[in-house]
C-alpha cells in the first residue's frame, strides 16, 4: 500500500512509544502490519495525551451533570447556560513541556491552542487566565523561564486581542526541572450558535482552513507523554512557533463561517494535528472520512504523508461543510486572506482513508484510533514516605523572635507578593467588559446586554496535594469557589488541569486517583459540575516528579453585576469580620516553606458542609449590600490575608485587629485553614450583617476595624505587630520583582 516508506517493525513501534501489546493489538485490528503512516496515527492517537489511557477510569468519577450544563466533557470545551439565551464556554490546557523547551513560543502556542478550543465551539473568547509554577526563584533558570513564559503569553494574547483577567504564579523547588504553564479560556456564545466537532453527513466536503502546514512539532503529542531525561534540550527542533495574527483572522473567519449556517462541524488541529481531527470528528458522529493530502496547503517541500498527518503547525482548523454551500465558506476565508481548501469528504463506512496523489497510505477504522484506544487500570500505591512527611510537626521548629519581620518576609515571598510585574504585561481590558482586573480574588466581566457578570479564577496548591492528595484537591475546589464567592458570584462550573508525574509509577497514579476523589467530593458537596479539563502526566525530570498539582479553573455567575466585590478594604470605620472556623495548621503552609524551608505536617480539616454554608452566608451578605470587601484567607494565613486587604487596593488603609490567643503566635498569624473569609462591613450594615450570620449559623466574629495608617495586630490582648501600612505595602509590592532584575 505504501511507497518508499520505512518498513514497520516492533522496534519501530516501540520507538514510537507503543508497547508490544499495543502493537499486537494494532495488527489484530488491521489484520495486517500497519503502514508507516498508520503507525504514526496509532502512536499519536494512542498516546497518553490524546487517549487518556491511564486516566480515563478515574475521570469517570467526576460529577459532570447539572441542569445548566449544555456540554460536558468530551468536546473541545464545556458549556454552561448563563440564561438570556447565552452560554459560557470554558476549558483549560497545559503547555508544560513545550514551555520548558522554549518558554516564549511554548507558552504562546499554549494560549493559541486554548483559544482555538473555545472558538471551535462557536464562541468568541472573552477572557484568559494563566496558572504558572516555577522552581526556586533564586535559580537563574527560573528567571529565564518565567520571563519567557510571561512574555509569550503576553505576546499571543495581546496580539490576538483577548483580556487576561487572572491566574496564579507559585514557586517550589519541585518545579525546577518541569515548570507548569496552564492556560484557561472562556468564551461567550448564543445557544443557537453552539457548534460541535462532529463530521456529520456522509458526502459533505471536508475543508482545511488557516495557516499552512510545516514540519512543526511532529513529535509533540508523543513528547508531551514522555518523561524528560537529561539532554531533553536536544529534542528542540520540534518546537512550534505561534502566529497570533493568523489566529485572530482565523477567529473572525471561523465565526463568520459558522454564522452562515453552512458549517456542519469544526475542530482545531491541535495535538496530533490532522490525524486527530480526521479520526475524532467522524468517530463522534459515527461516520468516516477520506482525505487527499496533496491538497493540504504546505509551506515546506517534500513532506511525507506521515509528516502531513502528524504536523502540529498552529492556527489551523478542519471544517465539515454542508454540500452545496462550499462557496459561502470559501468567500469568508478569502475575505480574511486565509487558505480554505477542500481536502476530502465525510464517508459512511467508519473508516479513515488517507491518500496522497490518489495513492492510499492509510486505511483505519476511526473507532480503533479513538474510542477503542487502550485503557489501562494500572496499579496504585500509597507512597511509603508519606507517613513520615505528614508526621512532621511544624511546631517543633522554633518560633520567630520578631513577628513584624516575619510578616514582612512572608509578604515579600514571591509566591505571596504582588504579581503586578506579570499582569501589567497582559492586556486586561480589551472588549471593555472587565469590571474587576487581575489583583483581586477573581476577575469579573460584565455580560453586555444583560445585568449579569461572570467571575473567573484558577486555584491549586501542590504542597497540600502532596501531603493529602484527596483533601488537597478538594481544597483547590473549595478555594476556587470561595474566590468566586468573595467576588459576589455563585460558582457555575469547573474546568480542570491535572498536572502529575508519570502514571506508570503506582504512587503517582495513587496521587492522581486520590486527587480525582477529592475533586469529586468537593464538586458534589458544593454542587459544581466539571465540564471540561485536561490531564498532563509525565511532569518529571530524571525521576523526580513535580508536586502533584491539580489546577481548578472555575467560572461563576453574578445575577447582578452590581454585586461584584473586591478584596481590598474601602472605608475607615468599617468593621472587619472573620467568617469561618478557627482551625488552622502550619502543615504545608507558606510560612513553613519560607522560614522552615520544609514541606510537611498535617492539613487543617476541611468540612465541606461548613464550606458551603460559609460561602452561602458570604454571598447573602454581599447580595444584601452589607459588605464593602471580601477576601479569602489562603497562603500565609490570616495575617497575610489582612495585609492584602489593607494594601492591595487603590488606597492603603490601616487596620486594628484583635485575635483571641489560640496556641503559638505563628500558628495564629500564619496558620492556613479552609473556609475562612475576611469581610469588611460598614457601621450602618453591622446589625443586619450580624443577624444574617446568625441565620446562616456559621461561625464568625468581628475582629477589628479599618482606619489610620498603621497595621496593628493584637493577640490575646498583646500587640504583636504594629507597623506603618506603607512598610508592608512596600514589602509586598517589591517582593516579586526583586528576583527579576
Amino acid at each position, binding site marked *: 500500500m505504501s511507497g518508499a516508506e520505512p518498513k514497520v517493525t516492533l522496534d519501530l513501534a516501540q520507538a514510537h512509544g507503543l508497547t508490544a501489546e499495543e502493537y499486537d493489538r494494532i495488527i489484530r485490528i488491521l489484520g495486517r502490519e500497519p503502514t508507516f503512516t498508520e503507525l504514526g496515527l496509532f502512536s499519536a492517537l494512542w498516546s497518553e495525551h490524546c487517549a487518556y489511557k491511564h486516566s480515563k477510569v478515574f475521570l469517570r468519577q467526576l460529577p459532570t451533570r447539572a441542569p445548566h450544563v449544555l456540554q460536558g466533557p468530551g468536546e473541545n470545551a464545556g458549556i454552561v447556560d448563563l440564561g438570556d439565551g447565552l452560554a459560557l464556554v470554558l476549558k483549560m490546557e497545559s503547555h508544560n513541556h513545550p514551555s520548558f*523547551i522554549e518558554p516564549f513560543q511554548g507558552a504562546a502556542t499554549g494560549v493559541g491552542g486554548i483559544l482555538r478550543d473555545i472558538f471551535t465551539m462557536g464562541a468568541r473568547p472573552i477572557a484568559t487566565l494563566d496558572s504558572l509554577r516555577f522552581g526556586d526563584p533564586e535559580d537563574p533558570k527560573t528567571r529565564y523561564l518565567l520571563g519567557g513564559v510571561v512574555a509569550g503569553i503576553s505576546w499571543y494574547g495581546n496580539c490576538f486581542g483577548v483580556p487576561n483577567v487572572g491566574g496564579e504564579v507559585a514557586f517550589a523547588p519541585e518545579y525546577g526541572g518541569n515548570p507548569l504553564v496552564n492556560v484557561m479560556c472562556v468564551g461567550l456564545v448564543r445557544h443557537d450558535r453552539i457548534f460541535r466537532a462532529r463530521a456529520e453527513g456522509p458526502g459533505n466536503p471536508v475543508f482545511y482552513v488557516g*495557516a499552512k502546514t510545516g514540519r512543526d512539532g511532529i513529535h509533540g503529542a508523543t513528547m508531551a507523554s514522555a518523561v524528560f531525561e537529561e539532554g531533553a534540550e536536544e529534542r528542540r*527542533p520540534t518546537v512550534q512557533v505561534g502566529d497570533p495574527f493568523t489566529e485572530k483572522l482565523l477567529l473572525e473567519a471561523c465565526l463568520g463561517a459558522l454564522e452562515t449556517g453552512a458549517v456542519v462541524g469544526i475542530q482545531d488541529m491541535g495535538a496530533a494535528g490532522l490525524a486527530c481531527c480526521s479520526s475524532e470528528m467522524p468517530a463522534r458522529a459515527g461516520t468516516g472520512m477520506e482525505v487527499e493530502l496533496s491538497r493540504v496547503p504546505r509551506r515546506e517541500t517534500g513532506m511525507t504523508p506521515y509528516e502531513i498527518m502528524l504536523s502540529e*503547525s498552529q492556527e489551523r482548523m478542519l471544517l465539515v461543510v454542508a454540500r452545496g454551500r462550499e462557496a459561502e465558506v470559501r468567500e469568508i476565508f478569502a475575505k480574511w486572506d486565509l487558505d480554505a481548501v477542500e481536502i476530502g469528504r465525510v464517508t459512511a463506512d467508519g473508516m479513515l482513508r488517507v491518500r496522497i496523489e490518489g495513492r492510499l497510505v492509510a486505511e483505519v477504522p476511526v473507532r480503533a484510533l479513538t474510542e477503542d484506544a487502550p485503557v489501562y487500570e494500572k496499579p496504585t500505591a500509597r507512597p511509603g514516605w508519606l507517613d513520615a512527611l505528614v508526621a512532621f510537626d511544624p511546631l517543633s521548629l522554633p518560633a520567630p523572635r520578631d513577628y513584624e519581620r516575619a510578616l514582612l518576609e512572608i509578604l515579600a515571598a514571591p509566591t505571596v507578593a504582588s504579581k503586578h510585574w506579570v499582569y501589567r504585561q497582559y492586556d486586561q481590558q480589551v472588549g471593555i467588559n472587565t469590571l474587576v482586573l487581575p489583583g483581586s480574588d477573581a476577575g469579573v466581566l460584565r455580560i453586555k446586554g444583560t445585568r449579569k457578570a461572570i467571575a473567573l479564577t484558577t486555584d491549586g496548591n501542590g504542597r497540600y496535594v502532596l501531603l493529602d492528595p484527596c483533601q488537597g484537591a478538594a481544597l483547590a475546589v473549595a478555594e476556587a469557589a470561595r474566590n468566586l464567592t468573595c467576588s459576589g458570584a455563585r460558582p457555575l462550573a469547573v474546568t480542570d488541569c491535572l498536572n502529575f508525574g508519570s502514571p506508570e509509577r503506582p504512587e503517582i497514579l495513587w496521587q492522581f486517583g486520590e486527587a480525582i476523589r477529592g475533586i469529586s467530593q468537593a464538586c458534589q458537596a458544593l454542587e459544581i459540575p466539571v465540564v471540561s479539563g485536561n490531564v498532563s502526566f509525565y511532569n518529571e525530570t530524571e525521576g523526580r516528579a513535580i508536586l502533584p498539582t491539580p489546577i481548578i479553573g472555575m467560572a461563576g455567575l453574578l445575577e447582578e453585576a452590581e454585586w461584584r466585590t473586591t478584596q481590598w478594604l474601602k472605608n475607615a470605620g468599617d468593621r472587619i469580620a472573620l467568617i469561618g472556623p478557627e482551625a488552622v495548621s502550619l502543615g504545608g503552609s507558606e510560612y513553613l516553606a519560607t522560614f522552615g524551608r520544609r514541606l510537611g505536617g498535617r492539613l487543617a480539616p476541611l468540612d465541606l458542609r461548613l464550606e458551603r454554608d460559609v460561602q452561602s452566608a458570604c454571598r447573602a451578605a454581599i447580595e444584601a449590600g452589607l459588605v464593602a470587601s471580601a477576601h479569602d484567607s489562603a497562603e500565609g494565613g490570616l495575617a497575610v490575608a489582612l495585609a492584602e486587604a489593607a494594601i492591595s487596593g487603590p488606597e492603603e488603609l490601616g487596620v486594628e485587629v484583635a485575635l483571641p490567643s489560640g496556641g503559638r503566635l505563628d500558628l495564629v498569624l500564619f496558620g492556613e485553614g479552609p473556609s475562612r473569609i475576611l469581610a469588611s462591613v460598614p457601621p450602618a450594615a453591622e446589625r443586619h450583617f450580624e443577624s444574617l450570620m446568625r441565620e446562616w449559623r456559621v461561625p464568625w466574629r468581628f475582629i477589628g476595624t479599618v482606619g489610620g495608617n498603621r497595621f496593628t495586630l493584637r493577640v490575646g490582648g498583646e500587640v504583636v505587630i504594629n507597623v506603618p501600612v506603607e512598610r508592608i505595602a512596600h514589602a509586598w509590592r517589591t517582593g516579586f520583582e526583586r528576583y527579576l532584575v
Partner: protein
Amino acid sequence: MRARVVVRLKRGILDPQGSAVKRALEGLGYREVRDLRVGKLLELELDGAASAQARGRLEEMCRRLLANPVTEDFTVEIVEEGTRPNLP
C-alpha cells in the same frame, strides 16, 4: 575591533513576520518577491584586536545568549579595523 552577528530563524521554522512583510510588499505591487525572511543583525564594538580567541568568544556569546538554539542559527563575522565592511 568590530564584529557582526547575524541571527536567523532555522530553516523550516515558521516566520510569521517574514510572511506578513512579503504579503504587504505584494499588496504594494512588488510581486517579484518570492520569499522573505526576517533576521537580526547585532553590531558589536569590542575591546582588543581581532583574533581567533575573539571569534571564539563571540560564538560563545551567541550560543549562550544572542541566539536561541531552539529556533535560530547564527553566524559571526569580524570586521578588521580599517577594512571595508563586507556588509553594505
